[in-house]
């Protein structure tokens, strides 16, 4: 009998498969294709302190083996989520990873408090947002800012705090260590790579927001590399993501160092991807005589 249970930040996940925030709504739509209890957990749509309408459309552009998106954090706000959405998910059979984005340190702290009083299992903090009080530079691109933000939020957070890292940085390991030093209980990576696609006939970017985040299989090599690098320098566990399309991809992220792995853009192609993934993982474990999936976390050996 193989074990696929993972203890992540003290919480038991029945399997290592979760979903990436922003690709899965609040579970309702994909729940019509696969029972949510098939997942170890799922990442809920990114929340902000107050409701947001998001960007104008088009919000998506297809690229080779990937997509650009710029939804702009359309969401009903953290209070609505706490009062209405989370209660309805209480018995869905999978852990809910709430995801929050803030304009200021204060907003992050307030959201952490609100989410701490819900049944969300984990609070994931998206730090790829512009820091409004400091010229709009993204929180996630400066190690000191990440450290201070994490430390501040941690004081208000009664749930495991996972910091979601932006890949648009010179040194992912510096940012990861800063988050760990600030008290993060876990890390998730990678968020999207910033990209742009131009319609050559109209001479305008396809996205109404001009630029957007690249995700999908195209970014997987960058994601695997960053998960590997981060796993080498931190002790806290990692949620790996970036272009997962199969169970083999999940295994690759786990070998690189991820304890949990998120499906994301791949769901748009295969809404029942989790079923293939679970079958492939079981086959891989059997083929290689692996009894406990925890044994493969970070088990890659360099050449």
């Amino acid at each position, binding site marked *: 009998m193989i074990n696929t249970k993972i203890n992540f930040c003290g919480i038991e996940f029945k399997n290592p498969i979760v979903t990436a925030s922003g690709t899965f709504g609040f579970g309702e739509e994909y729940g019509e294709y696969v029972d949510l209890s098939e997942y170890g957990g799922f990442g809920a749509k990114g929340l902000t302190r107050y*409701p947001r309408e998001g960007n104008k459309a088009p919000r998506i552009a297809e690229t080779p083996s990937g997509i650009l998106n710029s939804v702009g954090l359309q969401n009903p706000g953290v209070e609505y989520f706490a009062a209405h959405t989370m209660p309805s998910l209480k018995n869905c059979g999978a852990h809910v990873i709430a995801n929050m984005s803030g304009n200021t340190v204060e907003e992050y702290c307030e959201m952490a408090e609100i989410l701490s009083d819900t049944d969300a299992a984990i609070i994931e903090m998206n730090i790829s947002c512009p820091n409004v009080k400091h010229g709009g530079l993204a929180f996630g691109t400066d190690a000191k800012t990440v450290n201070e933000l994490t430390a501040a939020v941690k004081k208000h957070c009664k749930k495991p705090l996972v910091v979601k890292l932006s890949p648009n940085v010179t040194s992912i390991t510096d940012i990861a260590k800063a988050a760990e030093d600030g008290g993060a209980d876990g890390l998730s990576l990678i968020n999207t790579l910033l990209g742009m696609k131009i319609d050559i006939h109209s001479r305008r970017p396809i996205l109404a927001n001009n630029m957007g985040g690249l995700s999908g299989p195209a970014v997987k090599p960058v994601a695997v590399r960053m998960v590997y690098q981060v796993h080498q320098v931190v002790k806290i566990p990692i949620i790996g993501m970036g272009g997962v399309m199969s169970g083999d991809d999940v295994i690759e992220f786990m070998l690189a160092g991820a304890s949990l792995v998120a499906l994301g853009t791949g769901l748009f192609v295969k809404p029942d991807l989790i079923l293939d993934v679970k079958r492939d993982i079981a086959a891989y474990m059997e083929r290689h005589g692996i009894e406990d999936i925890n044994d493969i976390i970070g088990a890659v050996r360099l050449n």
Partner: protein
Amino acid sequence: MKQTKLCKLISKSEPIPGIFDFTVESPEIAAEARCGQFLHIACGGGTFLRRPISICDARDNCVRFIFEVKGEGTKALAERNIGDFIDVMGPLGHGFEVKPEHKNAVIIGGGIGVFPLFLLAKQVKSDVFLGFRGKDRVVMEDEFASVAKSVTVGTDDGSYGYKGYIASAMDEYLDKNPCDVIFACGPKPMLKAVKAIAERRGIECQLSLEQRMGCGIGACLVCTCESTKDGMDKQLRVCKNGPVFDSREVTLND
């Protein structure tokens, strides 16, 4: 649970250059399909995302959809052969709503926007207006004629039928005839004109919209259109709340 389906391609034609008319076998989709809904199709050819393609007809355990080759995905789809299996999600979305009070219905379609209207036209005996760029792009006229009260075809260049925008033909018709609902699908300028005409005349109007899509089921929030409401209802999901909307619900702003 809903599922993606591998549907066998059983008939294929190219009624006018670049437009492909496919029929696939799927008792489940055929049974569920409502007019105005769409399929989300994995086209192959190295493209990543599925392509939303409207349902044209559904009967005898089969679903028919007609699409234009616009890029790599639709090109790859067009290259499929009879007997091949096509990976389909659907039927998806909120289609046209036909109500008992719809006694005098008008259907108006422009270009490739005529295809999603056929199943509707079979269901509601209507006066149908079909607009095309020119005579060589006219398609499905006879099929609509076989199910409609009347069919008026127009071409932008006047090479066939009514000369000018088809919305003007409809507007002239409405001067003299009763109408309690307009169903429309077509390019945005046409939809804007139809919306304006309907609202000026106080006629209920249902518009089928297009937008670049991701998941197709309402989870990813990329295919939004702007509603006339504010706040959290400002952005509606074309794939889930639509693709068909009451014209008073949406702004059609870019």
